[in-house]
């Protein structure tokens, strides 16, 4: 189990090198690079050349990358071209917003998706059809459009939820939840459907197993069979899907944070893109990659907890 986790973390290193490498190469390849962005289109060629030398942009590429990695290891992600602030400071301010959003969306998918999936596995019928329709809808409706509709209906028309803004949980947990309800639903809608489908398929599979028949023959009640034995045994593929839901919710924050004007990493990525603020984009790419790696490691731990064959070997 421990070696499994260590191996997972070890495979993250080439991943981080690759992601940083890709963004780094992109940056240096292209005319709209950092020096040009700082000097501006109207800056004199002399100033541009001076800045290039200053930033080390005339050194060989691998040397620049080595410098960058060196800085990275020391927690230095460079400074924002636009605001001049350290990238790590900017990102750390915004990380809690995105984390709240994505974790809540994943939890929302887990609870609602598993509930719907179990019911449609056991009962089928209306809930089963609802899951089918929801998965079509979840696939078809783009997240940003769902976000706008939710905002239009529940914030603008019905005035139940705030349309924009973020409240940190340290200020008020209830208002934090309130502010994030609509964005979480917009992020989670597609995920609910895929979790529900996976739960249904995997529950149907486990409920047909012989040990379920043994438990029934021993008089164990329906509730325990469904929620304890079948769900526990069917949980592993569901957990895999939840990992994917987390990753896709993380990507969707780019759109959803923009709609609800939430000060998270996603909306920052959009701003940085339109401002050509490469160091910030690089930083966000790194943060997202690290988050994905952490989730993968957590998934491995959960697999081990769910599967005694993995845990005991």
């Amino acid at each position, binding site marked *: 189990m421990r070696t499994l986790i260590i191996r997972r973390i070890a495979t993250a290193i*080439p*991943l981080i090198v*690759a*992601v940083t490498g890709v*963004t780094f190469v*992109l*940056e240096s*390849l*292209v005319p*709209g690079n950092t020096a040009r962005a700082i000097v501006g289109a109207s800056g004199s060629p002399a100033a541009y050349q001076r800045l290039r030398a200053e930033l080390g942009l005339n050194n060989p590429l691998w040397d620049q990358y080595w410098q960058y990695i060196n800085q990275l290891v020391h927690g230095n992600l460079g400074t924002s071209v636009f605001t001049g602030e350290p990238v790590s400071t900017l990102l750390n301010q915004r990380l809690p917003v995105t984390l709240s959003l994505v974790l809540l969306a994943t939890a929302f998918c887990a609870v609602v998706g598993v509930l719907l999936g179990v019911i449609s596995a056991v009962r*089928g019928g209306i809930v089963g059809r609802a899951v089918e329709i929801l998965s*079509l809808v979840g*696939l*078809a*409706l*783009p997240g*940003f*459009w769902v976000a*706008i*509709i939710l*905002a*239009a209906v529940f914030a*603008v028309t019905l005035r139940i939820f705030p349309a924009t803004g973020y409240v940190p949980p340290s200020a008020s947990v209830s208002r934090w939840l309130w502010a994030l309800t609509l964005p979480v639903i917009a992020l989670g809608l597609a995920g609910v459907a895929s979790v529900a489908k996976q739960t249904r398929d995997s529950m149907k599979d486990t409920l047909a*197993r*012989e*040990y379920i*028949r*043994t*438990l*029934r*023959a*021993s*008089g*164990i*009640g329906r509730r325990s069979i469904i929620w304890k*034995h079948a769900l526990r045994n069917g949980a592993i593929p569901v957990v895999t899907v939840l990992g994917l839901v987390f*990753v896709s919710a993380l*990507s969707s924050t*780019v*759109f959803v944070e*923009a*709609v609800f004007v939430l000060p998270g990493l996603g909306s920052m*990525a*959009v701003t*940085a*893109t*339109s*401002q*050509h*603020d*490469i160091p910030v*984009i690089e930083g966000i*790419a790194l943060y*997202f*990659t690290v988050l*994905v790696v952490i989730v*993968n490691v957590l998934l491995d731990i959960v697999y081990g907890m*769910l599967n*005694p*064959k993995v845990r005991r070997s």
Partner: protein
Amino acid sequence: MSEIAVVARPQAPSTGRFLRRALRKPLGVISAAYLVLLTLACVLAPLIAPYAPLDEDLTHVQGGPSGAHLLGTDELGRDVVSRLLYGGQLTLLGVVECVAVLLIISLPVGLAAGYLGGWVDRAVSAAVDLLLSVPGIIVVLAVLAVFGSSMTAAMVTFGVLGSAGVIRVVRSAVLSVREELYVAAARVSGVTEPRIVVRHILPRIAGPVIVQASLFAAIALAIQTGLSFLSLGVAPPAPSWGGMVGEAASLIDQDGWLLVPSGGIIALTILAFGLMGDAVRDATVEGWSARSAPAIRTVRRPASPTSTPASVPIPAGPEPGDDAVLTVRDLSVSFDAQDGPVTVVDRVSFTLGAGEVLGIVGESGCGKSVTALSLLQLLPPNGRISGGRVLLGDQDLTAMSERQIANLRGNAMAMVFQEPTVSLDPSFLVGAQVAEVVRRHDRVSRAAARRRVLELFEQVRLPDPAGTARRYPHELSGGMAQRVCLALALAGRPSVLIADEPTTALDVTVQAEILGLLRQLRDETEMSIILVTHDWGVVADICDRALVMYAGQVVEQAQVGALFREPRHPYTLGLQDCNPQRWTGDGDLPVIPGTVLPPASWPTSCRFRVRCRFAESDCGLTPIPLEHSTGEHGADDREVRCIHWHEVAPARSA
């Protein structure tokens, strides 16, 4: 041309076939037609659009749908239909770029990985794993930040990132095709490798690739419109679907209408790509599984089993005796199949006395296990009791609700199954599983339940009760697992234990131990046992009485001693003759010719007739009743379903 190629001349499945099958799916056809029409309309926008996309008409601002403007006008009075058509050009172009890049990368790389294997495969797999963990959208944004606002650059990047998933699909499809006979045959007969790939492998993997491309097109469309919604990659006022959603969103507190056409066309188009992919996938899957499709459909089981009397009058079964623990009368079980219900157990009757061990014997497919499962109503979802009664003492189990039955399971009647290692929940310690059953029946504290588990484990002679309790099922041997299953069954102190081939999956020495244990348990607890088996050794070893079943019917029932001394049904005789333990070693081991027919083709007359060496013409005329035949100890102690039984017993000695 080698021999292999001649012998194995399998037909390569054609690409066209599943495309045709896909086109038979109405949703797939509608989706494909929609996409074709949409593409045409967007390409021909300059010809068919009623207005230019940037034509402003400030006198008709935010006009709803009208004759002049079918979908209304936006905040600058521009025609929505025209903007959608022109905007679609860019959107669909983005999707095409993305999918083209995806295929250009994933097809050759996936083919190489799957076909060449070795280090190529390992390198590709590593790269794919890497690429799959990259947060794609951020990389796309980085590209956009660098390349100004080039939507093409963004979509190409997204195609590159997306190729990882498709490479994986292509690779595994190639792997499964590579070893198939027709490919091997082509290779042996000297077809060159590139030709094999083009002629034999590509057509076969086309299905999964089309599915992936189609589903990825849906994602690409969502990304393209999302980016243009964020004004990345497209500069207003140029029309784009995502941009139109954005413009509509800014007017949200005045008028929601504009969100409908812009969001609607995006949703419809994504849906069309998704449904087309699904249709092709279903068609592909059908093509591969058409032959192995199960004949029996799953049909929901009615809330309570109907116990309608059998249509044909039959001789009354045995009356419940004074000491009868379980009385089964005219029990019939049917399964729902494609052509309606099929009866697989036909009016089975027997009684089980206290402490009695009753064997149910027969070949596979004769309804032994189904009979056993139906007693506790543990039939699969498509099976149900279609007639007769199961009386436990004086309670009629067939008249009970599922909840009432559930309360009897485990304490009145319990069951053990054939495969002990898969009969235990793999996720829980065996001690905890047995403890849950104990607490279900005894309502005691956790500590008391733990103590009872150890008692039960001692009762089933597990060598190390405490140690075993802390193990998972996969850490037990078959014999130990079967003892745990017995402990599970004994936890509710049942008066009847049903054992369905409890020793079949075990080693011979372990079989003897488990049988010995069953006998000891019967002696200790006065429990009655129903033992389903095909093994006459087991019957002789432990059973008091046996029921021989053939094709869903009881064909003979007698005390075990009488049954061995003087079998009266030809099937009983045949089964005993082909028992290896009785075989003297001279000549071939005798067998009963033929096999048990599937339930749907059982005749109304004697079902064994076609395999019977005593059969005569009168056997095929009418249903053969199960008749009491006088045994050596009195009138009613044996039954046989054969009109020629008088000829059978003498044949044994002959």
